[in-house]
Structure formats: C-alpha cells, structure tokens
C-alpha cells in the first residue's frame, strides 16, 4: 500500500497545483484585491453616513467577500456542487486519504477536522493571549505609556473578539467534531462537507479580524456598541465580517451536531445512555443554532448603517442604539453559555472516569444542561440594567438571571456527588476538572452581585464584571479545554502528553489565574472601569500585581506549548488504547482511531458510566469482517 503510494507520488510542483491551501491563499488575496478594486470603480470614497472621509467601507467589505469566495473555491468547496450540477453521483467523503497532507486542506474526515480545529483555534487562542499580555503591559502604569490610546483599544477589542469569537467553537470544534461520532458509534458526522466548511470559515474569519490592524483597528471592544460602531474607522468592518463569519460557522456547526446526535446514534444508544458530553454538545448546539443568526443579523444591519446609509442604530436619524444593545445581547448571553456548557459537560464526563463511579444523578445533570439552555434566553437585559431601558422589567431579569443558578447547581451537585466515596485519582485532566469547581464557584457567586440591580449599579461596567466573566470563561471553559486536551489528545494522536510538565502547567496556571483575576474583583469594587488606558493612582499596586500574575499565567501557557510540542513531536510516548481505564465507547477503539472508526457499528448495551456494576462491556464488540455502509 505505502510502496504503491510512493511510486505514484507526483513531483512537488505538480502537487502544489490544484485545490489546496496554497491556491486558496492566492485566490483569497487575489479576490480581496479584485473586490477592493471593483468597489472603488462603482463607489466614491465618501458614501458613508458621516460625510466626507477618505475611507471606502464598501470597498473593504467587497474585498473581504470576494476574497472569502476565492479562498473557499481555492480549497475546493466548489468542486462537489459543480460535479453534482454536471450529473455526477453523490458522495459523502472527500480527500480522506493522503497522510498529513489531509490536514492542510478540505477534508471531510471528522477526526481530521477535529485536529485541524485544535491547531487552528489554538493558534488564535495564543494570539488573543498575546494581546492580553500587551494590555497588561500597558496597565503597569496608571497613565498611558506604551501604546497610543487608539492602539490600546484595538488590542482590547482584538483580545475580546478573538477569544469570544474563535473560542465559541473551542470545545465543539476540536472535541465534539472528533468525539461525537466515536461516542455515538457513527462513522462520520451528518454533514461532512459542512463540517469542513465551518473550520475553514473560522480560519478565514480569524485572519480577517487580524487584518483590522491595516485599517486603523476598531475602538469598540468585542461588543461593538452602536453608534460608536458607525463612527469608527474602516477597521470596524473587519470586526463585522469576522463576527458574521463566526456566526455562520457556529450556526452550521450546531446544526451538524444536532443532526448527528439525533439521527446517527448506534443501535441501543438510547437518550438515557447518551454520554453526558453529547448532552452538553447538543445543548450548546441548540444555543448556537438559535443565537448565531441574531448576531449575523445585527452585524448585517451595522454593515448597512456603515455603507448603505441606513440608520438602524442612529438616534439622530430615527434609529436606536437600544436596538443594537438588545439584539447583541440576545445573541450575547446565550453566547456566554455556549462557552460554559461544554465545560460543564467535560467535567461531568471526566469525573466518573477518575473516581471510578457512575455519573451521579444522570437525569438531574441532563436537566441542568437543558435548564441552562432554556433560561439563557430570558436574561439578556441584565447586561443593560443601567441603560435606561425597561426600568420596570429589571426585577424580572434579576429573577431570571438568578434562576440560572438552579440548573447550574444541578451540575455542581452531580459532579460533587460523583466524587463522593469514589476512588479518586489525580492525573492532569482530573486536576483541571477539580479547578473548574473552584473557579466556576467564584464566577457564579460573583455573578449574583451583577444580577442584583442595586449591586450591579456599582459593579456594572467595572473590572468586577471583567473579573467575573474571566472566572466563568477562562476559569471554567479554558480549564476544561485543557482537561480535554490532556484527556483526549492521546486518543487523537496516539501519544501521551508528559504528566510532570502537565502538573507544573496546571499548578502554575491555577495559582496565576486566581492571582490575576481575584484582585480584579477588588479593582472593580474600588472603582476601576473596564477598558480604560488610565486608572486612579490608588489602584496602581493592584494593577501591577495583576500584570505580573498575568505574565506568569502567560508563561504557564508556554509550558503547556512546550509540553505539547515535546510530547507529540520529540518524545512520542505511545498511548495505550485506554490509558485512563474509561468505559466510554471512544476508548474501546485503537489510538489513533482508524479512518472508518468502527469495523462494524457497535450495539450499545449500557451507558458509559457503569463502574462498579460489573455489567460487562459497554458495547458488544462486533465480529471482525467487512465494514457496513460506505
């Protein structure tokens, strides 16, 4: 097989011609210039609402759209629709063979897409983290001294937008794409091409956001509030295109997950045997599918305001900034749970493995996930408690926000009772899961202050709220993201990550994280507003402390990076098929998983948590033989 592949291998120059990443980048850049040039031919530079500037937003939008089209065509997304138009038979798989080259282009294998996501999102996570380091460098001094004020705001905006945008798919992209088919006993996702599309849309989006630095940056932070949005430089257009593409990618990703979990479960995998991780995925996916279109809509309206002289958000011309704030947070609050729910699910999925006990209160845990999914639609106006809208509805939003702590409490009690009287082991993934309890507890309790209107009057828009959502997102999502990496990367790559470096990474990150964001609660209580380049001199000590802790936090992530590269590229300690002794279906497969996952589709006989029950294996291993479909 391999000898044959070597024989028929074409020379390098020949392999570079065709639909691949190189073509995609060239067509993307070429398309951008074409769109930019063409738009300059049809529209003058001063069509925008605010009168004469030398900025041509239409040209920039056209550049991004044509560039994106070129990028996707270059990757080969047009090939299949074109073939179908010409009458070729349908197929479900594309470019799934060919060694490491598969990872550099369009590939419909869900395992390849999962690993692409892991590297892609990881790259942008580190860029976003670097922005945070620069922000903290600026805040070492109470006056502004390193960056000009505009660049500082661009850094703040890029950090927030990168993290909130790219990391919404932080768990579902790498881990759900890779694991959901393995956990439900399927050979692929429901829509393999859409799956690949979501990844490449996200990569295009991240690149587009980064190009904002060529067009003056943007001053609005990740929320992009109007009318500052309308007033901002051309760099704002990068933000709009970025977030709209993220929204589309998110929506498609969610649809794919729902369709896969609903329709492609193996025989015997009833809803009450579904791994809790899949429940977390489907809850998140429901939020993604319903929330992302609102985001795309509000960004399209912003785009029209900036280019076609509409005035959805300009009070001077009959619009309202409240419209933006409402639509943005109708997306934005579910977005927060899109980030949090996969974290809950990972914790509940991993705790049974490391405590050798069944998941305690499975139904209660599912109810918790679905309860958060439902309630997260009813709370968005707590983000605009002091904006002057609906002053009489604030008690309702206060109640609905606090009600979310009930289903969240279900997750806590299920997790803690799973630990209760277990035989606990503490490898690195378990440590990250335990840290989740601590971090999310602080995040949740500080949320009570923000949901209570009288307290929110002080804490709203201050560093208190900033510390709060870093506890809930970084402390919960990012910690569980690392738990998932240490836990599942052996399955994905076939190599173990170094345990000692992992422990150093964990402890340094845990201590530095709390030392960074804990004091920021105090900074907010003492009156430091968010997103400022200056602050009062009495807050100097806290800010220096926080900055130094943040640098240590950044350093702990470098340790992770070193561990990741060392373990996977140099040390290459082969992973046993089931290093954690898990009973879950994905660990019954060899590491790394073969292309077609299962020789024969398994029959599921229990849920993956029957530790101590001695009921036998989770699935009846099918006799070896010819594969089923496809």
């Amino acid at each position, binding site marked *: 097989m391999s000898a044959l592949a070597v024989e028929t291998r074409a020379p390098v120059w020949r392999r570079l011609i065709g639909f691949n990443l190189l073509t995609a980048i060239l067509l993307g850049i070429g398309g951008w210039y074409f769109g930019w040039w063409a738009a300059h031919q049809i529209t003058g530079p001063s069509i925008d609402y*605010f*009168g004469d500037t030398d900025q041509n937003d239409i040209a920039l939008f056209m550049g991004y759209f044509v560039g994106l089209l070129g990028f996707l065509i270059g990757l080969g997304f047009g090939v299949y629709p074109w073939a179908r138009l010409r009458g070729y038979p349908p197929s479900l798989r594309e470019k799934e063979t060919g060694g490491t080259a598969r990872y550099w282009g369009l590939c419909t294998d869900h395992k390849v897409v999962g690993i692409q996501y892991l590297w892609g999102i990881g790259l942008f996570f580190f860029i976003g983290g670097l922005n945070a380091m620069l922000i903290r460098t600026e805040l070492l001094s109470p006056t*502004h001294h390193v960056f000009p*004020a*505009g660049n*500082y705001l661009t850094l703040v905006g890029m950090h927030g937008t990168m993290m909130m945008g790219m990391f919404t798919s932080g768990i579902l992209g790498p881990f759900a794409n890779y694991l959901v088919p393995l956990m439900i006993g399927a050979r692929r996702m429901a829509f393999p091409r859409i799956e690949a599309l979501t990844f490449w849309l996200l990569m295009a989006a991240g690149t587009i956001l980064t190009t904002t630095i060529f067009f003056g940056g943007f001053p609005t932070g990740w929320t992009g*509030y109007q*009318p*500052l949005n309308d*007033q*901002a*430089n051309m760099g704002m257009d990068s933000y709009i295109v970025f977030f709209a593409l993220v929204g589309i990618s998110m929506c498609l990703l969610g649809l794919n997950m729902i369709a896969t979990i609903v329709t492609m479960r193996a025989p015997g995998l009833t809803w009450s045997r579904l791994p809790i991780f899949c429940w977390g995925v489907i809850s998140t996916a429901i939020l993604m599918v319903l929330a992302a279109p609102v985001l795309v809509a509000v960004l399209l309206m912003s785009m029209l305001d900036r280019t076609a002289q509409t005035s959805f958000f300009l009070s*001077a011309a009959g619009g309202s900034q*409240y419209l933006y704030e409402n639509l943005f947070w109708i997306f934005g609050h579910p977005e927060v749970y899109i980030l949090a729910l996969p974290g809950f699910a990972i914790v509940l999925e991993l705790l049974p493995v490391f405590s*050798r*006990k*069944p998941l*305690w*209160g*499975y139904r*209660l845990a599912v109810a918790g996930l679905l309860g958060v999914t439902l309630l997260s639609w009813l709370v968005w106006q707590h983000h605009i*408690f*002091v*904006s*002057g*809208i609906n*002053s009489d509805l*604030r*008690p309702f939003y*206060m*109640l609905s926000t*606090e*009600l979310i702590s009930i289903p969240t409490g279900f997750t806590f*009690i299920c997790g*803690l*009772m799973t*630990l*209760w*009287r*277990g*035989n606990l082991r*503490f490898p690195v993934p378990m440590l990250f899961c*335990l840290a989740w309890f*601590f971090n999310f507890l*602080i995040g949740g309790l500080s949320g009570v*202050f923000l949901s*209570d*209107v*009288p307290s929110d*009057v002080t804490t709203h*828009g*201050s560093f208190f709220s900033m510390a709060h959502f870093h506890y809930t997102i970084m402390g919960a999502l990012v910690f569980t993201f690392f738990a998932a990496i240490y836990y599942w990367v052996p399955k994905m790559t076939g190599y173990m990550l170094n345990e000692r470096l992992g422990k150093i990474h964990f402890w340094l990150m845990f201590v530095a994280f709390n030392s960074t964001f804990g004091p920021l609660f105090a900074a907010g*209580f*003492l009156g430091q*507003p*968010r997103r400022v380049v200056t602050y*009062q001199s009495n807050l100097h000590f806290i800010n220096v402390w926080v900055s130094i802790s943040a640098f240590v936090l950044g350093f702990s992530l470098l340790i992770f990076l070193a561990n990741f590269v060392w373990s996977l590229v140099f040390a290459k300690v082969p992973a046993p098929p089931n290093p954690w002794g898990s009973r879950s279906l994905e660990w019954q497969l060899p590491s790394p998983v073969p292309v077609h996952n299962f020789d024969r589709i398994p029959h599921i006989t229990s849920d993956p948590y029957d*530790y*101590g029950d*001695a009921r036998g294996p989770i699935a009846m291993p099918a006799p070896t033989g010819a594969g089923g479909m496809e």
Partner: protein
Amino acid sequence: MSTNAADTTAIAGAPNHGKRFLTIWIVASVIATPLVAIFLGDLLPPGDASAQATQQVFDNSWLLTISTPIFLFVLILLLYTVFSFRARTTELVDGPPMRGNARIQLLWMIITPAVVLFLAGFGTYELWQSGAGGGQGPNAAFLPAGYKQALDVQVIGQQWAFTYRYPTYGGVETPHLVLPARTLVRLHVTSLDAVHSFWAYQLGVKADANPGVDNVAYVQTKGPEAFDIHCAELCGLWHGYMFDTGHVVASAQFASWIKQQQSYFAPVMKYLPKYSTSYLPDPQRRAG
C-alpha cells in the same frame, strides 16, 4: 431502587462521611459567616456619600454574607472528597455504583430555588426603595420618597467629557458637577454622540448616557464630600481619560456657586440650545 440499597450496604462499617462533612460545614459557616458580615461587609463599596450608596453597601454585604455558606459548602465538599476518597492503590478499583439519591436530589431542588427566590425578592425590595441609584430611563419605575421636589440636574456625555446643566437655574451649562448637601437630586443623563455611562462612584450612581434618551437616576446626597466621576461605557479613543471630580457642598455654598456660574457663563448662554431632556446630535464625522 437498588441504588439506595447499594448505598447503605457500602456505608456499613465505614465512618459516616455525610454526617462528618455536614458538621464541618455547619461549624465553618457558623464561624465564618458572622465574621464576613461584620468585618468585610463595611469595607464593600461604594461608601456612604448618599442614601443610595449606603443602600448598595447594605446590599453588597448581604450578598457576600449569603454567599459565604454556599461558597464553604462547595469548597469543603470538594476538599473533603479529595482528601477522604483518594484511591489507595495504583490499580483501578471501582467505587460503589451510586447512581443518584432521591432524597438528596429532592432536598437540593428545594433548597437552591428557595435561596434564589429569596435573593430575587431581596434585590427587588431594595430596588423598590429608591431606584438604587441606577439609570431608569425617562419613566422611572422605582421612585424614592419625595421625588417630586427633587433638584433637576442634567448630565451630558460627549466625547470625551461630561458637562452639566441646571434647568432650575436658567439652564446654565458648566463643566463642573456640584450638588447641594442633603438634597434629593434627579439626574437626567443623556449623550450627544456615542453611548457613555455616567458613574459617580461614591454616590452609587450609574446611568448610561444614550443619544436621544433622557435616562433618569435619583440620588439623595448626604454631607459635603468630593466624589469620583468616570465614564463606564467604552466610548472611543479617550474613554480612559473621561473622568472628573464632583463635589457635594453645603446648600449656601451651592447657592453662591451656581450664581457665580450663571454670571460667568451668561455671555455664552445665547449660543446654547434651549434646555431639553435630550438633544439630537448632528451627524458626526469619523473619529478614532
């Protein structure tokens, strides 16, 4: 169900972990909660420069006090499990197959909603008292006593400063915020361009400044004091420099100050637009 049976058989002979944990938690809570309430409660912001600020301190200290036993419950349970139930052997030994416990689940489903409903009721009651210093829009739903006699002061946010108009004193506009002591003040917060947020920290006031909107916040001042003003909503390039100091002064001093402002700004009054609850901004040019 068989799960409960398995539960009880496993307990026999072992120490009663449930009772032990509850004892630790109750003792820790009984000690820590009053300490938090007494020593940390008063340190919480925003101080007592106004009735609203005092009320917020009360709110914050209550929330912190209620949070203490909840925090301790999860933390102690987590630490208890981690220290008591660590695996003694290197080989994998399964724990008891506990799949749930109807009593604990039911208890949890009663207690957490009770706490949540109490918190929401408490917050609503506090809000009802006086509006808590938050911006309430043109038709404030929660009014403090005697709101009809309140002194009107308009706060105008623009990139990147706040100015203040006193409609009862001829609509004079000044760059300084001075308020009389022991007076109920009705702040009308509005903006001329982007969204700002007027935050008078020590007074416990925060209200977004929206173009075209009259956002009303009530504050009952106390004795003479200086207070910090920040913009708390990202409003563009110099957002970080949009801060100021305001003053609460004795009534007589306020009267002489406002007279002085009126005479000082008299020559430019004719260029000001007529006092209004909001001003439609001119179409803007692009800025940073």
